[in-house]
């Protein structure tokens, strides 16, 4: 029996000659909020659809809470809340009818939980009485979040959950995930291609590229590998050179200005500046988005 809440072992899916994912091995621990990051087409949705048994793997296996996703699919899906990337709907149905329909197909949600979620995501009774064909993209997304969260499942799989949400709703979503993380009873797999989306809520992230899991890191580890631009301005010209170090690389050296890319702690660098006519030091914030962008676009 696996200790991981979600586990894939050498999971592979080919669409003919096209690689969906290849030998993807991943473990998400119970109670963890795990971000699954990758560019469009990297294999995130394929992985999720394999977990839900919507796709059949070419090879490898996947399990959730110890249940094999294919052979014990019903046991898995009894314990799962899912938000697809594209929010499918029945246009002729009202929002209330939609939630009632989905409630009737699985474990029933409690009225209190439903009310909390509807209130949190600002879905009014009037909204629920409208046909879904009249819903905006954001409203469909909010209803999608409600249906995924309403049964308080032990495992949540959310594909691009904040796509189309306004900042207030993104915050409401983050609060909800924070609550679940604090309670520690729910494992969340959150797929996204936007770092800021996972930065707020996730404890670890998996980076997927070209169908392969390239790295699994905590956000602090990701930040540690992300360079920050440090600029030292001198009050008068100096001949001094920045000492060589594995922590920084020199981008530009001018008589009155050094520009360095720093990875890691800057204490040693600050120490070398003592005695020099330093006028100002500027340290740019972590640009993890840039690092990810490079990661996504670099050739494998």
């Amino acid at each position, binding site marked *: 029996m696996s200790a991981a809440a979600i586990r894939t072992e050498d999971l592979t899916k080919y669409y003919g000659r096209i690689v969906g994912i290849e030998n993807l091995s991943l473990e998400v621990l119970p109670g963890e909020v795990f971000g699954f990051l990758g560019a469009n087409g990297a294999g995130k949705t394929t992985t999720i659809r394999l977990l*839900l*048994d919507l*796709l059949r793997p070419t090879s490898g296996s996947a399990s959730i809470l110890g249940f094999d996703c294919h052979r014990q699919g019903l046991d898995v*899906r009894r314990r799962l809340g899912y938000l697809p990337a594209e929010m499918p709907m*029945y246009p*002729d149905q009202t929002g209330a009818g939609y939630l009632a329909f*989905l409630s*009737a*197909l699985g474990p029933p949600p409690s009225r209190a939980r439903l009310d909390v979620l509807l209130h949190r995501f600002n879905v009014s009774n009037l909204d629920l009485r409208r046909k879904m064909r009249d819903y905006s993209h954001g409203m469909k997304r909010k209803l999608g979040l409600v249906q995924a969260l309403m049964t308080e499942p032990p495992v949540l799989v959310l594909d691009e959950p904040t796509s189309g949400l306004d900042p207030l709703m993104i915050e409401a979503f983050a609060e909800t995930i924070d609550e679940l993380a604090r309670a520690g009873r729910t494992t969340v797999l959150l797929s996204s291609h936007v770092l800021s989306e996972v930065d707020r809520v996730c404890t670890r992230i998996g980076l997927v590229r070209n169908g392969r899991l390239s790295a699994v890191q905590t956000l602090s580890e990701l930040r540690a590998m992300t360079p920050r631009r440090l600029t030292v301005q001198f009050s008068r010209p100096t001949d001094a050179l920045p000492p060589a170090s594995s922590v920084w690389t020199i981008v530009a050296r001018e008589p009155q200005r050094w520009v360095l890319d720093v990875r890691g702690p800057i204490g040693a660098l600050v120490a070398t500046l003592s005695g020099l006519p330093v006028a100002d030091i500027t340290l740019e914030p972590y640009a993890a988005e840039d690092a990810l962008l490079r990661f996504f676009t670099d050739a494998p």
Partner: protein
Amino acid sequence: MMLTLVRRTLTRAATLFVVIGTLLVLFQLTIVAMATTIADGSGFEGLARLVPAFLSSFLGETLMSFAGMTSIGFFEPLIVMMVVQFAIYLGTEPAGDVETGLVDLVLARPLSRHQLVTRSLIVMTGAATLLPGAMSVSLWIALRWLAPPELVWPQSHRVVLLASHLAAVGWCFGAAALATSGWARRRGSAFAFVGVGAVGFYLLDFVASAWSRLEWARPLSPFHYFRGAEVLAGRTDPARDLSVLVAAGFVAVAVAYWQFQRRDV
């Protein structure tokens, strides 16, 4: 769960079902009124004299008697095709679920894939049965309401046979649509494939019935097992014909379950 799924499908298909059902019922009422008018006037003997010989041989006794004319709705090509195409439409629902992504939401619940096929099978079977059923009931009401008692009405067991054949041929094509949905990712593709195929099979049967060189191909068409004029005249083996249609449908249903279970959705 199954009741919820069936109710949802019924809600979506209700308008179309009511429209088609109303058309068929109105046709039955109209054809009885028309046949009554003809019987009151020059009579069917006069009509028979006006019909060319080759058409008489093709139509059989259909237009030559009150009973024949009032039964024509069950095998009139456009009506048969309407029932068949509606069954095909309902049979392609699983492909529609895949196309719209609704299958993601539904199958994210603890539901087996075969339940989606069963849902569409229930609704398709219901529609294929209810439409000919409604036609039979409306025919009986129209006869009671409009036809003078001295006219010879269609025999009730012949009407039941005609309705059964219509239901069976509709069900057979609906089952083929269900099987095609096992592969299709788009409902339109599945509908076009089976819908056009149905028209093709109808034409094949029509041409093969008149051209001896194609006679061998006639049994391939489901419409070969539903020759309304001959059912009316009692010149067919209804048990054999119905068995073939139902058996072919069962094979298609089995294929649908097998393929939908193994495919990527």
